[in-house]
């Protein structure tokens, strides 16, 4: 499934991610998942929120003068069993898709792990994942 993700450019300084988290928190927007990648002096926070809150989250962050982009990423529900993830990744590799980055999160109420994948070919990757 394709879902939308918010990416925020952050200077690598103390408290920068806290500013974003506080901003969303104060506006009752819950982060379902996030990851931060960084270089020596800047980072990018990628954030997943509830689908109905994403527009509001995006506009809110933008209005507070952050550089923010919205991208489509592939969402994979991966079963809690050995080899499930391997199978998905092998299929993507076989189709010549490379993954820019990915991250996963689990929640105890679900029988699946939730995996977010940012491939170079989003459409094709989504098709492969949905046929698993």
């Amino acid at each position, binding site marked *: 499934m394709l879902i939308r*993700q918010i*990416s925020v*450019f952050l200077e690598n300084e103390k408290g920068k991610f806290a500013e974003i988290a506080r901003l969303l928190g104060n506006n009752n927007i819950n982060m379902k998942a996030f990851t931060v990648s*960084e270089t020596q002096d*800047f980072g990018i926070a990628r954030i997943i929120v509830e689908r109905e809150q994403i527009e509001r989250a995006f506009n809110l962050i933008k209005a507070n003068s*952050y*550089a923010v982009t919205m991208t489509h990423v592939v969402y994979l529900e991966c079963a809690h069993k050995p080899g499930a993830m391997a199978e998905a990744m092998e299929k993507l590799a076989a189709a010549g898709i490379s993954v*820019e*980055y990915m991250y996963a999160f689990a929640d105890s109420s679900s029988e699946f792990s939730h995996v977010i994948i940012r491939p170079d070919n989003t459409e094709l990757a989504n098709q492969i994942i949905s046929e698993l």
Partner: protein
Amino acid sequence: MIWNKKIECMSRDEMHALQSEKLKKIVAHAYNNSPFYKKRFDEHGVRPEDIHSIDDIVKLPFTVKQDLRDNYPFGMMCVPMTQILRLHASSGTTGKPIVVGYVQKDLDNWSEAVARCLTAYGLGSDDLVQIAYGYGLFTGGLGAHDGVTRIGGTVIPTSSGNTQKQLQLMQDFGATAVACTPSYALYMAEEIRKQGLDINNFKLKVGIFGAEPWTNAMRKELEDKLHIKAYDIYGLTEISGPGVGGECECQNGTHLWEDLYYPEIIDPVTLQPVEHGQKGELVFTTLDKWGMPMIRYRTRDLTYLNYDKCDCGRTAVRMGKILGRSDDMMIIRGVNVFPSQIESILLEFPEYEPYFLIEVDRVNNTDTFDIQVEVKPEFYTDQINELVRLRQRLTSRIQSVVGIQPAIKIVQPGTIERSTGKAKRAIDHRKFE
């Protein structure tokens, strides 16, 4: 067309001989008639007899803007005031204004210089030139005016301001050229669009733009919007006014009229002449200006000179774009760095905003050279590698132009101060004691 083919296309040897003759005369005139120059030359241990050719100009002391302020209003004049026919002045942002005075010969040479520029732009006696530079103490209006008269063109002396009327007259009279600052021309183009006027109802073909630095991007915008060829006219009050130099149809450098205004490029720190073609501070000596000669006047403008013959046929030396002001220069790791260089590099990149902040410090006896920049909102991506690559491209470009490697820091949008001109673009934290 070329206004004065003999001079503008003269061989370098003939020009050297002409400049040498003129320098000897003007130096003697300054020394004998100005207490200011006599004192300055005596202190420097140089006398008019020491000047045998233009190459001896390096023996002479420099003149700076402060000298004009210190001698306000008429202390720099080298003739009795009865011979001065006109005064111009420039206010500047600080201190007393500077005042310049012209005898008849000076006014003639000035209009000759402007006539050479106008002819190089392709203008002649058939043309109607709307002069939207200010008339008055500012040299722009009257300087351009006399040049147009000299080539037999028709002057439309609107002066600056009242844009609505400017545009109406420009259209009704069928002005074929407009002289103003490039930023005012952009404003007029915007007004034409706003008022729903059709540029095809105008007869403009040439824009004569000067009195402020402008970029090639501005040139393109002006040419596209006004359906003109946009030409640079260079000048400064101290040297005479607009027309010290102008571009030709090749638009590849500003020809300087070096039989009247002799240019040198010096290193602003050592004050020594630089190698041919190297950038540095532009210095002028007025070789044929009698009311108030300027000997080795430091303009503070940074540029470079090209002595190659131009495709237009002129041999007159060409000046590159003004790269900035020597007052802003910093020396980092032994290399001269100008904030304006960073600005022009940023303008080459569509991905970056043209704003920046340079910070220099000294850590472990080595200078640090940090530059904060902003990426335009539409060029952000969620892929860190692309931003890293973008930063690397800028780093390499700056290193190749400036000669030392900066540490580029991409900061959040809106972080860097916007007000151009007065904005603080560099902070030097180093302590030298």
